[in-house]
C-alpha cells in the first residue's frame, strides 16, 4: 500500500518551517499546485508534507490532499513528499511555468513525464522505529565522525575509547550487535573488537537511516540492537556536470577537512550517470578544558567512484570506495598494570601531557577499508524485479604499541580481513495487494594475521562462511494497516587455525544455525496519528575474539579469556513507535518504547586476579547470561511561531542481567537534549537561515553491577551547544555556511560511556566552521 511507502521522516520537518508560502520577487510568480493521492486506491493523502528543497519551501496538504506553492522562481527543484507513516519520496521537478501535478508517485505511468524518480524508498522495516538523517542534518555535523552525527538520534549514544574512537550504540547495544550497511553492503570491519570504530567516510553518503529494532530477517546476523544504513546517493541521469566542494575548520584539534564531489551524465545516453568524490581530514591533539589530550590526532582520507545506468527495466551500479584512517590513542591511557590504573584514577589527571602536536605516535592505529560493489536490478515484469549484488571488501588494521628496543614502528597487531558477499533478491507481487521479497545471501570471509609482529596474535586466523535464505511479505489490511511478516534461516561455519603456547596447531571448527522471525504493523489510526509495532528476533554467532581471546588487554588493564563453548546470542525485541501531530501540526510527538530479551548475551565477567611480571591484573572471562534491555525514546517538537520552534529529545535505557539479577555494565545513562530553533526562510539574498541553541543533560549512571568497575560512574554533566547555517545564491550556484559549537562553556566532564574516562576528561569547547559550494545544479 502506497500510503505506507510515503510515510515519513520527521527529521524533514525540523529544519523547514511548515509555513504557508510567502514572499514574491519580480521574476518569481510561478505557482506549483496539485494533490497527493494514494497510488493504489486514489484516496487523498491528507496532511502530506510537500517540500521544494532548494527553494526552502514546504507546504502541508489539506484534508483533500491539495497543496499549493505560489511565488516560485523558475528552476530545478528536488520535490519531496512525506506523509505521516510513510517514507519520504524525492523527485526532480523542472519548473518553467506554473504547474499543477497530481502526485501518484509510482513510476509506471508516462503521465508523469515531468517527474523523474530520483529516490524511491522501498517499503521495508514495517513496524520498526527508524530515523533518517538526511543531507541537511548530516551537513550540520560536517567534519565529525559518523558516530557523532548519529548521536542526535534519540536512543543512539556513543561508546567511545578516548576522543578518537567512537562506535554508535543503539538502545544499549553496540559493536557486533549493531549492523552497519555501507552502500547496502554489510560493513565487516567491526569484526575485530570494541576499540575499533567503523571505517566509514561520512562524506561519501548523504543519507543515513537508523533502524532501532531487531532486523535479522531483513539483514542477517548481528542486527540485534538495530541497523545503521548509509545509503547510496542516486546518480544523475541526464547530461551536464555538477558538483560540490566542502570545507571545514575545527578548533579543537586545530585542523579541518574537505570534500570534493563531481557528478554528471552523458549526452545522448540518458540514464547513464557517474560520480567521483574525494575527502580528507587532519586533526592534531584534542584539548580537554585543563590539558592537552596528548596523542589524539586523526588523519583520514577517502575516495569513491560510482557509475551507473538506469532505465525503466534495468538498473546497474558499480561502486568503488577507499578509506584510510590513522589515529592516535591517548598516551596516558597506555598503562602497565592495575597500580597504574589506580594511580590514574586517584590523581584525576593524565600522567602524560605534552605540547600540542599534529604528530601521531605510538600507541596508534591505522586502518584501510576498500569496497567494490556491483549491483544489477532488472524488472522481469512491471512489478517483479530481481536484484543481484556482489561486493568485495578488504580491511586491514595495524596497531602500534609502545615497544622497547625501537620496535614501536613495528605493528603489534597486523590483521587483514577479506570478505566477499553476494545477495540475490526477488521483489514480487502476489495478486493485487501482497508484495514482498525473497532472497538468498552468502558470505565468505578470511581473517589473516600478517606475520612479523613478533607478538602472538590476539585474534587467530579464521575463515567464515555463511549462507542464508529469507522471505518477507507485506500485506495491506484495509486502508490504514500494513502488515509485514518474514523469516530467515542462516548457517555459519567458522574454521580457526592457531598455535597454542606450546606450538601445537589447533584447527577447531564451529557451526551455528540460526533463524529469525519477525512481524511488523504500521497502523495509521488517523491521518495525524500513526503507530508502528514490531516484534522480531535476531541472532549473532559468537565472535572469534569471544571464543579465543587469551591475553593481556593493555588499554583495559585486564587479562581476557575467551570461551569456545559459547553459543549464538538470540534476541527477541518488541517495539512500539507512536508518531502524532497535534494542533494542526504545531506539536509533533514521537515515542518509541522497546523491550529486548537476549539469551546467551556474551560479556566479560571478573574472575579473580593473576600475577604477572608487571604486577597483578584482574582476569575477565567471556561468559554468557540472559539480558533484558528496555527503554524509551521521546521527541517533542513545538512550532511556537512560524520562526521559533522548540525541540526536545530524551533517551532512557535500562539493562538487566537476568541470571545474576543485577544491572548490566556500560549501559548509557538517561539523557535529554532541548533545542531552541529559529529559522528564516528568506531574508535579502540569504535563504534557509537557521539558528539553534541546545542544552544537553546527561545523568549519572547509578544502575551498575556491583564490584565490576574500577571507578564509580562520572558525575552528571550539562553541555551547551550552538549552531547556525545559511545559504545564498551565486548565479546558478549556491553557497551554504554553517557554524557548530559544542561544549560552549568549556565544561570539564567525563562520560560513563567513554572507556578512557579513567585517564582523562572529555574534550572541551569545540567550534567548527563549514562551507559548502554547490555548482551547476542538475538540469
Amino acid at each position, binding site marked *: 500500500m502506497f500510503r505506507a511507502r510515503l510515510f515519513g521522516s520527521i527529521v524533514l520537518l525540523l529544519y523547514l518551517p511548515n509555513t504557508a508560502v510567502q514572499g514574491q520577487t519580480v521574476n518569481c510568480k510561478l505557482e506549483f499546485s496539485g494533490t497527493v493521492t494514494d497510488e493504489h486506491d486514489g484516496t487523498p493523502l491528507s496532511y502530506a508534507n510537500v517540500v521544494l528543497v532548494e527553494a526552502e519551501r514546504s507546504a502541508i496538504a489539506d484534508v483533500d490532499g491539495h497543496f499549493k506553492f505560489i511565488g516560485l522562481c523558475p528552476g530545478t527543484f528536488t520535490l519531496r513528499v512525506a506523509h505521516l507513516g510513510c517514507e519520504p519520496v524525492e523527485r526532480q521537478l523542472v519548473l518553467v511555468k506554473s504547474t499543477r501535478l497530481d502526485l501518484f508517485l509510482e513510476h509506471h505511468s508516462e503521465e508523469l513525464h515531468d517527474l523523474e524518480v530520483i529516490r524511491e524508498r522501498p517499503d521495508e522495516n514495517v513496524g520498526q522505529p527508524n530515523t533518517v538523517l538526511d543531507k541537511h542534518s548530516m551537513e550540520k555535523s560536517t567534519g565529525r565522525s559518523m558516530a557523532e552525527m548519529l548521536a542526535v538520534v534519540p536512543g543512539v549514544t556513543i561508546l567511545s575509547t578516548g576522543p578518537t574512537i567512537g562506535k554508535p550504540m543503539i538502545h544499549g547495544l553496540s559493536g557486533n550487535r549493531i549492523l552497519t550497511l555501507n552502500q547496502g553492503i554489510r560493513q565487516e570491519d567491526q569484526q575485530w573488537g570494541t576499540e575499533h570504530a567503523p571505517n566509514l567516510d561520512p562524506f561519501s553518503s548523504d543519507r543515513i537511516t537508523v533502524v532501532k529494532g531487531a532486523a535479522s530477517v531483513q539483514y542477517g546476523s548481528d542486527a540485534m540492537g538495530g541497523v545503521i544504513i548509509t545509503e547510496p546517493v542516486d546518480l544523475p541521469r541526464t547530461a551536464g556536470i555538477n558538483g560540490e566542494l566542502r570545507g571545514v575548520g575545527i578548533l579543537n584539534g586545530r585542523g579541518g577537512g574537505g570534500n570534493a564531489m563531481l557528478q554528471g551524465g552523458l549526452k545522448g545516453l540518458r540514464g547513464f550517470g557517474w560520480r567521483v568524490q574525494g575527502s580528507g581530514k587532519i586533526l592534531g591533539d584534542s584539548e580537554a578544558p585543563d590539558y592537552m589530550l596528548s596523542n589524539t590526532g586523526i588523519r583520514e582520507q577517502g575516495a569513491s567512484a560510482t557509475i551507473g545506468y538506469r532505465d525503466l527495466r534495468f538498473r546497474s551500479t558499480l561502486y568503488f570506495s577507499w578509506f584510510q584512517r590513522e589515529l592516535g590513542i591517548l598516551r596516558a591511557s*597506555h*598503562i*602497565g*598494570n592495575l*597500580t*597504574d590504573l589506580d594511580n590514574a584514577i586517584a590523581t584525576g589527571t593524565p*600522567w*602524560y601531557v605534552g605540547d600540542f602536536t599534529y604528530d601521531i605516535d605510538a600507541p596508534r592505529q591505522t586502518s584501510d577499508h576498500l569496497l567494490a560493489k556491483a549491483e544489477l536490478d*532488472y524488472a*522481469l515484469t512491471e512489478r517483479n524485479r*530481481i536484484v*543481484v549484488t556482489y561486493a568485495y571488501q578488504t580491511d586491514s588494521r595495524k596497531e602500534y604499541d*609502545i*615497544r*622497547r*628496543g625501537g*620496535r614501536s614502528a613495528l605493528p603489534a597487531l597486523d590483521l587483514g580481513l577479506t570478505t*566477499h558477499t*553476494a545477495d*540475490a533478491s*526477488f521483489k514480487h507481487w502476489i495478486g493485487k495487494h501482497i508484495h514482498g521479497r525473497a532472497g*538468498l545471501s*552468502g558470505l*565468505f570471509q*578470511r*581473517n*589473516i*594475521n600478517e*606475520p612479523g609482529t*613478533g*607478538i*602472538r*596474535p590476539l585474534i587467530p*586466523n*579464521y*575463515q567464515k*562462511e555463511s*549462507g542464508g535464505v529469507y522471505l518477507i511479505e507485506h500485506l495491506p489490511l484495509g486502508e490504514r494497516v500494513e502488515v509485514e511478516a518474514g523469516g530467515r534461516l542462516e548457517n555459519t561455519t567458522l*574454521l580457526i*587455525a*592457531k*598455535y597454542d*603456547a606450546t*606450538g601445537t*596447531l589447533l*584447527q577447531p571448527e564451529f557451526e551455528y544455525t540460526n533463524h529469525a522471525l519477525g512481524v511488523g504493523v504500521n497502523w495509521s489510526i488517523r491521518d495525524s496519528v500513526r503507530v508502528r509495532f514490531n516484534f522480531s528476533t535476531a541472532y549473532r554467532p559468537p565472535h572469534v575474539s569471544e571464543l579465543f581471546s*587469551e*591475553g*593481556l588487554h593493555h588499554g583495559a588493564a585486564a*587479562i581476557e*579469556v575467551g570461551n569456545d563453548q559459547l553459543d549464538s546470542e538470540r534476541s527477541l525485541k518488541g517495539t512500539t513507535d507512536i508518531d502524532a501531530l497535534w494542533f494542526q501540526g504545531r506539536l509533533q510527538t514521537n515515542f518509541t518504547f522497546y523491550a529486548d530479551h537476549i539469551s546467551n548475551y556474551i560479556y566479560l565477567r571478573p574472575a579473580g586476579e*593473576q*600475577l*604477572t*611480571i*608487571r*604486577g597483578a*591484573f584482574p*582476569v575477565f572471562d567471556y561468559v554468557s547470561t540472559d539480558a533484558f534491555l528496555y527503554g524509551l525514546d521521546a521527541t517533542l517538537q513545538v512550532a511556537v511561531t512560524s520562526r521559533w520552534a522548540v525541540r526536545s529529545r530524551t533517551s532512557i535505557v535500562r539493562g538487566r542481567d537476568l541470571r545474576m539479577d543485577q544491572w548490566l555494565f556500560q549501559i548509557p545513562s538517561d539523557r535529554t537534549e532541548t533545542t531552541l530553533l529559529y529559522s528564516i526562510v528568506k531574508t535579502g539574498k540569504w535563504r534557509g537561515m537557521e539558528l539553534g541553541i541546545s542544552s544537553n543533560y546527561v545523568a549519572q549512571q547509578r544502575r551498575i553491577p556491583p564490584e565490576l568497575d574500577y571507578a564509580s560512574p562520572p558525575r552528571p554533566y550539562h553541555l551547551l551547544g550552538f549552531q547556525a547555517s545559511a545559504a545564498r545564491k551565486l548565479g546558478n550556484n549556491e553557497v551554504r555556511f554553517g557554524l557548530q559549537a559544542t561544549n560552549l562553556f568549556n565544561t570539564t566532564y567525563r562520560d560513563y560511556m567513554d572507556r578512557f574516562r579513567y585517564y582523562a576528561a572529555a574534550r572541551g569547547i569545540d567550534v567548527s566552521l563549514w562551507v559548502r559550494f554547490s555548482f551547476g545544479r542538475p538540469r
Partner: protein
Amino acid sequence: MKQLILFFFAVVTFTSCKKDENPIVPVQPPANEEEVITTLVLTFTDIQSFEDHVFRFTDLDGDGGNAPVIEVDDLPGNRDFAVFISFLNESVSPVQNITTQIENELEQHQFFFQTVGVNLTISYGDEDANMHPVGLINNSTSLSPSTGTLKVTLRHDPDKSATGVSSGDITNAGGDTDIEVTFPVVIL
C-alpha cells in the same frame, strides 16, 4: 527467473569450495614474543665476601597461563651489597638478555624499590646521560634481622625531574609500569 536460478547456483558453488588444504593455517608457528620479560633477577653481591644472594622471578609462559615462580635467597644482616638487576626472555632460544635494551634507553627508564617491614635500604648506584638515576646498579645495606617484602618497580617514561623521583620516591614518577614484582625478604 533464469538469472535467479543461475545466481543461486553460483552462490552454492561459491560457498561450497571446501578447504582442501586449509589456506588459513599460518605458515609457521608464531615466533615467541620478542618483548616478553619472563625473568627478573636481582643479585645482591656482598662487597666483602663477593658472595651472591639471588632474588628471581620467573614466568616462562608470559602473562596469563601458569603462575610465576618466585625464588629468594635469605640475606645476611649488617652487610653492604652491590645490587645488579638483569632480566631475561627465557621463552626463546637462545635466551635473550633484555637488560641491554634498557641500557640503550636509560633516560626512559627508572627502577623504584619499596620495602615493608624489612630492615633493608637501597640507593641508586648509576645514572643516565642527564645525571638522573636508573637503578640497574645499586647499593644496599642490610641491618638487623627482620622479615618483610621488597617491591621492585620499573617505570617506562617516568618524569625523573619531578619532586623526589631522583631520590627514589615513586609518588610523582608517573609513566607506565613495565615491571612490578614483590619479593618476600628475610634478613637473618
